[in-house]
């Protein structure tokens, strides 16, 4: 029982990183109705920029700033190339071009960083916290606290500001939003920057916990974030968070009871179960649910 509880605690902590990645994906998808496959690789570029500064002896704050700035630059580059130009045209074209840019970003990083792994600085050097029989790793507690704060911030931004109202308007009816004079291109850019800051934070927390970075981090981040988003329901903010946490807990339980080689299977198992039983995800947007229902009627 203690093991099971400890796994849940660890799972929630690991899952909060996934939740951030899922949140970034779901923001982009929910508002722009476009899947940005290059989102994970943008985060990867960001942490390599951070590593570049770390290798040259920069302090922790500089590394953090560089990571966030790198992620934002990379993601704005992707938005500009794949989504701005084709904003009103085919969604498929945008998704495919974001896949192409993924390859480009990964190759560019490998050219500059030819080795397999590079070090990344630890974010906190605190001792683990013990609460009765349960251990809390300090890195994970930091991660969880950051995620909780960030979620509160995102909620305020989306539901209490003019920019947030514009986001929701564009998400629900882009044509009507344009009739109100809401500039679609700038909202798209705003979403790209916002998602990049969230992803950059996820990258920092995850790379800081592992203390290493690899070029395949982009693939890994896209994979975890996509699954978190799909479990929670495409386009739903609380859904992405729940999906991420659920994925984290499932992974840790699978590893503990079945073995480390089953870790990725947990994701596929969850995904399969959801696609069969609840294809709209845990808290899918009503709009997506309606689209799915309409599709089923055909």
């Amino acid at each position, binding site marked *: 029982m203690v093991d099971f509880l400890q796994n849940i605690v660890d799972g929630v902590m690991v899952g909060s990183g996934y939740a951030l990645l899922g949140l970034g994906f779901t923001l982009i998808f929910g508002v722009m109705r476009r899947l940005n496959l290059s989102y994970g690789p943008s985060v990867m570029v960001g942490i390599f920029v951070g590593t570049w500064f770390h290798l040259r002896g920069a302090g922790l704050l500089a590394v953090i700033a560089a990571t966030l700035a790198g992620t934002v630059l990379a993601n704005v580059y992707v938005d500009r190339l794949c989504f701005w130009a084709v904003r009103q045209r085919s969604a498929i074209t945008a998704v495919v071009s974001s896949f192409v840019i993924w390859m480009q970003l990964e190759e560019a990083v490998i050219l500059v960083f030819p080795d397999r792994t590079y070090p990344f600085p630890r974010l906190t050097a605190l001792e683990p916290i013990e609460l009765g029989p349960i251990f809390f790793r300090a890195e994970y507690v930091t991660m969880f606290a950051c995620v909780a704060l960030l979620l509160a911030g995102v909620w305020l931004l989306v539901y209490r500001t003019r920019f947030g*109202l514009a986001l929701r308007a564009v998400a629900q009816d882009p044509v009507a939003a344009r009739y*109100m*004079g*809401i500039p679609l291109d700038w909202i798209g850019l705003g979403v790209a920057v916002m998602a990049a800051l969230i992803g950059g934070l996820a990258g920092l927390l995850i790379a800081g916990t592992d203390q290493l970075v690899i070029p395949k981090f982009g693939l890994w981040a896209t994979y975890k974030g996509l699954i978190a988003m799909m479990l929670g329901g495409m386009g739903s903010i609380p859904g992405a968070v729940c999906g991420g946490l659920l994925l984290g807990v499932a992974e840790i339980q699978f590893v503990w009871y079945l073995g480390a080689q089953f870790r990725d299977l947990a994701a596929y198992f969850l995904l399969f179960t959801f696609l069969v039983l609840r294809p709209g995800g845990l808290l899918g947007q009503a709009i997506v649910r309606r689209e799915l229902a309409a599709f089923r009627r055909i």
Partner: protein
Amino acid sequence: MLVIENIVTAYGKIEALRGVSMEAQEGRITCLLGPNGAGKTTLMYTVAGILHARRGSVRLQGQELVGKPSSEIVRRGLALVPENRLTFPEVSVRENLIAGAYLRLTRDKAGVAEDLERQLVRFPRLRERINQDAGTLSGGEQQMLAVARALMARPRILLMDEPSLGLAPLVVEEIFRTIHELNAEGVTVLLVEQNAHMALQIAHHFYLLEQGRITFSGVPGALQEDEVIHRAYLGGSGASSH
């Protein structure tokens, strides 16, 4: 006030508008009638800057609108009540209205609050539903919301694209009464309709649009209502029912 000249708008090679010219005069209700597929909504999209005209010009009080982004067109004083209402379904009635005043939301908080109150006085039903999501409203209420939302932009001219579409007769009457009242308060209205009978009762001037061209321009009464209705639903100039 709004002068449309020789507008050509195309989807790929198909020209939906083949040189449309018309005018909406200040303080009046101008009505555009025509059958499905005549290009009425395309014209609205073009004027509002959602679609780009291939040729021609649209001037609002002498200022050219073609080529301007839609945000600039809204800023110049043109607001549109879109076909099928297009309210934001999972946003509250209050926020739907506030979104209508998006462009001056940060500069003019007091003005926006004032306008919000004015709309709630005009449409008491919206006040009752102020915190509900727009998607839970009835069709008629959503149409009221769409009109109120457009008015939140303080437009000089209000474009309305088929406001009676899919509504019960009593609700349609209410909508037309609202249009009439707005006009009496000085709002210039360009109304696109298929409901020729209702539209001709309030219009000062009307146009017929058929297959991408204006085929008639005149005051109500200039044509037999039967013929207008026939052409507004079925198109085909000269196909008057004798």
